């Protein structure tokens, strides 16, 4: 465990009461390896550790706390600072019907999350509408319809010749006509470097006023999490993030990377394949998980 490893490093400075440069460098090397093994982005690790080193040097070690513990606390607090505060709900007030668009890479869990979100909103007495915005993936519409049926939530699917922006526009009308107050748009998975598909998302934005753009990311994403998230954010925009497959054992460094580079809060955690497997994201718990 990290605390023990740091205690060993700082054993040599016991009684000195001050963490000095040499043993801090050794501890920094250890934490660097731990963070990179946890998939935190290389450049972010560099910046984070520069801050940690600054804070650790010259700090008096409180008698009741081992220097290892003191060091871990500095890192822990720095990371919690990056992750931001806990869950604060979705912005569902400024437009009616409130419209949320899910975006992200292929296979990240968007369609499943759309279903989970619908369940979550129903529990809060909303009347959601799911919109089948993925016209490319084989049986994508079928998948969303099946999920909708299982939770008794209507699914709007366009005619076969409609583009996603058109489908979304018509879906909004359908929502209004049927007094459905929240519209959840599922979109096709896409690479952030696919210009026409990224533009498609902006076309959807032109057709419907969005309350939230929700970026769905896989918790096991590696170093590219930074480029992926920042490109989605710069080209389309994102307001909220959902991290999926947290029921696995990926350390989830991508969470830190995504928050660091976009500044957008991670609000949801996908913790399984059932539509009830949705939790509010806990930043502090994520930090402990990343630190391993």
């Amino acid at each position, binding site marked *: 465990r990290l605390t023990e490893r740091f205690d060993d490093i700082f054993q040599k400075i016991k009684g000195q009461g001050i963490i000095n440069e040499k043993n801090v460098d050794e501890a920094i090397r250890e934490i660097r390896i731990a963070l990179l093994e946890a998939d935190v982005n290389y450049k972010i690790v560099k910046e984070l550790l520069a801050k940690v080193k600054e804070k650790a040097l010259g700090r008096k070690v409180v008698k009741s706390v081992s220097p290892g513990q003191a060091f871990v606390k500095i890192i822990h607090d720095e990371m919690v600072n990056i992750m931001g505060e806990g869950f604060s709900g979705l912005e569902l007030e400024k437009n009616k019907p409130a419209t949320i668009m899910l975006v992200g890479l292929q296979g990240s869990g968007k369609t499943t999350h759309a279903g989970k979100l619908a369940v979550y909103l129903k529990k809060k007495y909303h009347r959601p509408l799911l919109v089948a915005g993925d016209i490319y993936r084989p049986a994508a519409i079928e998948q969303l319809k099946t999920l909708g049926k299982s939770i008794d939530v209507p699914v709007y699917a366009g005619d076969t010749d409609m583009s996603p922006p058109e489908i979304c526009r018509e879906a909004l009308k359908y929502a209004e006509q049927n007094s459905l107050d929240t519209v959840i748009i599922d979109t096709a998975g896409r690479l*952030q470097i696919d210009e026409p598909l990224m533009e498609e998302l902006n076309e959807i934005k032109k057709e419907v006023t969005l309350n939230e753009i929700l970026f769905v990311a896989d918790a096991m994403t590696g170093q590219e999490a930074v480029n992926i998230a920042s490109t989605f954010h710069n080209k389309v925009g994102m307001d909220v993030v959902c991290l999926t497959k947290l029921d696995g054992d990926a350390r989830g460094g991508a969470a830190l990377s995504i928050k660091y580079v976009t500044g957008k809060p991670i609000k949801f955690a996908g913790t399984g394949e059932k539509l009830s497997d949705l939790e509010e994201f806990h930043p502090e718990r994520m930090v402990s998980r990343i630190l391993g």
Partner: protein
Amino acid sequence: FKGKKTVDDELFDEMEAILIQSDLGVTPALDIVEDMRKQARERKVREPGQLLELFKEEILHLLEGSEKTYAFSSSPFVFFVIGVNGVGKTTTIGKLGWQYVQEGKRVMIVAGDTFRAAAVEQLQIWAERAGCTFFSKPMNTDPSAVIYEALQKADKEGFDCVLVDTAGRLHTRGNLLDELKKMNRVAKKVIPDAPHEVVIVLDASTGQNALAQVKTFHEHLPLTGMVITKLDGTSKGGIAVSLYHDYNIPISHIGIGEEVEDLREFSAKDFVEALFL
């Protein structure tokens, strides 16, 4: 890198950054860089271009023997395609089926995912695109029962190849790993050597967790091949180097897109070149 004129510490740092950012893994990357420092000294490497070649050589050496082409040594030749959720198993089966059909093979695609919404419908569309025979049972049928019947049919009707799609499963779910083992046992009841290939599909954008995935799946059902998908994205899939180094499971293909022809045989040389682009 391009502007560098000398082989110095800064250049080695840059190489380290490239390797780590490719998801190769921090400890393997540090080991390679350390080794390269020694070699550069011994071989008196002074040009940055030369150093780059040295790095490529080293990684190519680590990937020696990593390429694999499946040879249908018996009939029907059975593949289990497994992996965690959303990596591209179903899509890869469609692509692979199409490739074998182009080669004149008679291919059966089996809907072993009887759990996820519209999994059977999705695979059916791929089977049609690929010109393969499609075999499925109703949703929630025990996947082992699906395999049992499918293999009996494939054997009886003289299929060359059977591609079995399975539900995505996290390697942390013991009961789902048991389900795979049961599918394996049941397959052997029909065809003693089946499955002839157990292929794990990995997403190129996955970080260090790929190691845990391969380790655990391999412990429960010995893997004979790996496929790395979504290499058309910006992730380099550097984890493949550590995976091959640690588990010696060869890589047969890479996925480079969402269309039926977007599958390539794995080339270690091309892979290493791409790592440094």
